[in-house]
């Protein structure tokens, strides 16, 4: 077994373990993520609070588990949505060419030029205020999925152009396949490594974007934790250096991102 394969197995095992812990947060977490132990704000790790408490006295271990569930489950969903949009539109642009290609690429360029962050801020401001936390979380990731496809589309479009004149497509066309059939039965299956790579790349990107959104007060709302709002605790650098266990969410985020990168199909794999 090569070292690379070994690393991949480790990464997969690690991701599965984190995912299972997050899924079982209701059972594993010792406390509610929202309960404030007001006599113990910013406490150090103890037997009762494994990762200590945050500034409001909430159990950090419980919050980390629930936060992982929110970020780790919804980021792949958003990545899947973005990859699907990029795949279909990119393949259509690359295969059909002409007016279709120009229109889709113009929309893509426009989307890439738009400042995503301001767009998200504006969209959040337009949402009604009295939405449930779960709805807010889903809406955030939905927005990420709906707005996060343009860069992936460019890659898919370029890959489709490469195969546009290939023999198997010529054969399919000559046997009477229409554009939709060509895209879904011929092009997309052939672009599977590219689409998979885009999917895996998008997951850590969306996790980090959600973290940024939470730091701006968007996205997941208090008291529901996410990696984003847990990372906000790291803004107070002197407090973090005095209480190094506060970096636990960051360590977990880095670990998960590395794991995703390790199991990502590389260029060599595609070849």
């Amino acid at each position, binding site marked *: 077994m090569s070292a690379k394969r070994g690393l991949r197995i480790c990464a997969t095992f690690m991701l599965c373990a984190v995912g299972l812990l997050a899924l079982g947060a209701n059972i594993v977490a010792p406390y509610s993520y929202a309960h404030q132990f007001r006599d113990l704000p910013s406490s150090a790790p103890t037997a009762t609070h494994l990762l200590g408490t945050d500034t409001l006295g909430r159990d950090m271990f419980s919050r980390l588990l629930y936060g992982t569930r929110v970020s780790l489950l919804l980021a792949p969903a958003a990545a899947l949505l973005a990859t699907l949009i990029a795949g279909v539109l990119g393949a259509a642009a690359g295969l059909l060419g002409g007016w279709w290609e120009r229109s889709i690429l113009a929309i893509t360029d426009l989307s890439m030029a738009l400042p995503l962050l301001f767009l998200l801020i504006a969209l959040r*401001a337009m949402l009604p*205020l*009295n939405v449930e*936390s779960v709805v807010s979380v889903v809406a955030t990731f939905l927005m990420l999925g709906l707005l996060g496809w343009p860069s992936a589309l460019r890659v898919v479009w370029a890959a489709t152009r490469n195969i546009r004149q290939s023999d198997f497509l010529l054969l399919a066309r000559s046997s009477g396949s229409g554009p939709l059939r060509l895209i879904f039965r011929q092009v997309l299956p052939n672009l599977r490594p590219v689409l998979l790579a885009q999917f895996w790349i998008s997951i850590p990107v969306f996790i980090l974007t959600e973290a940024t959104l939470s730091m701006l*007060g968007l996205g997941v709302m*208090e008291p529901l934790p996410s990696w984003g709002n847990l990372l906000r605790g790291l803004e107070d650098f002197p407090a973090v250096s005095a209480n190094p266990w506060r970096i636990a969410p960051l360590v977990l985020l880095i670990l998960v991102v590395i794991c995703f990168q390790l199991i990502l199909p590389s260029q060599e794999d595609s070849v």
Partner: protein
Amino acid sequence: MKPRALRNLAVVMLLAAAPLALGQSGGVLHFCLHGEPKTFNPILVDDEASENIRYLTGGVLIRLNRQTQALEPGLAESWHVSKDGRTITFRLRKGLHFSDGTAFTSEDVGYTMKTLMDPQVHSPTGDAFRSGEGAIDVQTPTPDVVTITFPASVAGLERLFDQVAILSVHSPQKEMAVLGPFYVSEYKAGLYVELKRNPNYWRRDAQGHPLPYLDGIRLDIQRNRDIELLRFRRGELQLINRLDAESYQHLQKDDPNVARNAGAGLDSDHIWFNEVPSAPLAEYKKAWFRTTEFRKAVSLAINRDDICRIVFAGYAKPAYGPVSPANRFWFNAALPAPKYDPQGALRLLIQAGFRFANDELRDKAGNRVEFTLVTNSGNTVREKMAAMIQQDLSQIGIKVSVVTLDFPSLIERMTRTFDYEACLLGLVNTDLDPSGVMTVWLSSGENHQWNPNQKNPATPWEAEMDKLMREQASAIADKDRKKKFDRVQQIIYEQQPFIYLVNRDVLTAVSPAVVGVAPTVLNPQAFWNADVLQLGPAPQLGAQK
């Protein structure tokens, strides 16, 4: 050591200490402005950075002592306000000169007041003096006497002159010629403002030495508070005017002598419910928000002590009402201290027809009591306060959802669409006098946040507040005004349109090298007495760490 050697050593030590004792410190004090000054014209000042420069450079007729909160003679030796509160007569100090050497006379005061009140100038400082239609009349019978008559009586007239820096009518330097302790010698946009000692400043210390002691002040323009703190720690700055509780705590751990707490300040944080009749909210929710018992119950259920202890690390005090105890004259000391009583809150709610069962509060119609609390995003302190309020209110069965919005969206909802249920924000108080906050308390005011711009007062208690606020604004004697404003505070306490939470402490950082600093709760907190500040004989910049 021989006796003579000892004597010599003592003389050397005395000489070394002499400069500080005589007040001849010199040196340049460094600290930061948190924004670009928009103007150096004291008449047009409308931002904090320009306000700070006006304070350091402007000469005023009457100065409000930031420590005693009493009025003291400035450029005017004495003054007299007429019985009808419309006319004020100043007797000016003789022989004073502007920083460029131009003589100071009553003509300059007249010119300043006319410019200030000119409607074409749009002076924010002048707005405070506008009490009625018509122009002001300025008489200058002699070079050292000036009489100003306003079209109508002006409440707290003398106090307003603390903001009026006198301009020179004859100086070729116009507004750059000043009567304050320093003058602006250099300004590099985005970088710094350099102030130099005004050699013609009129004040002297008790020993007759000319003030200010410092040679100058360098104000670096720095918006980033973290960088400011870092530079202070490095010793590049000697003073930070306002610190947040966390930074203060860290500094205090490093060096307790550096961190200074002036006590509870004038600023407050509070929540309020949207009571605007046209607001796009469910009618049953509007009915809760208009119920006094509901608002009082919410107030009783919030643990303000916990907020002070946890969110502000103890550097805040539970707020009594609209006026902080730091505002010594206007604070109504008869108001009871804020209470935390969730059981009492439940009793009040049940009396008002609400039902509490299975940890949920419902109204008469069976609607679950829940609301959304909005606050501005990016403000971690308010977000923490909101999270604590959320838990406190859950104990009486009220479900609170916290939503953070960017400030423009929040203002849009507060002032135009009224599409919000409850809001958590703060009020920055720079004025001690209640006349400065008329737009908050008058039902027709745009800052009457719970129900602004009312054509007629919606409730009898708002009608009473309107009457009292107008009466206090036109009353002359401070005693009468205080009595009326005390009643306004009492009404606010009884009705809780604003549920006051905390008054934050005024926290500053001052290098041990700066002598004479006595931070106060009033702006400018740490350098209000800049003319008597000194740098130690061997100035050590900033904290040691």
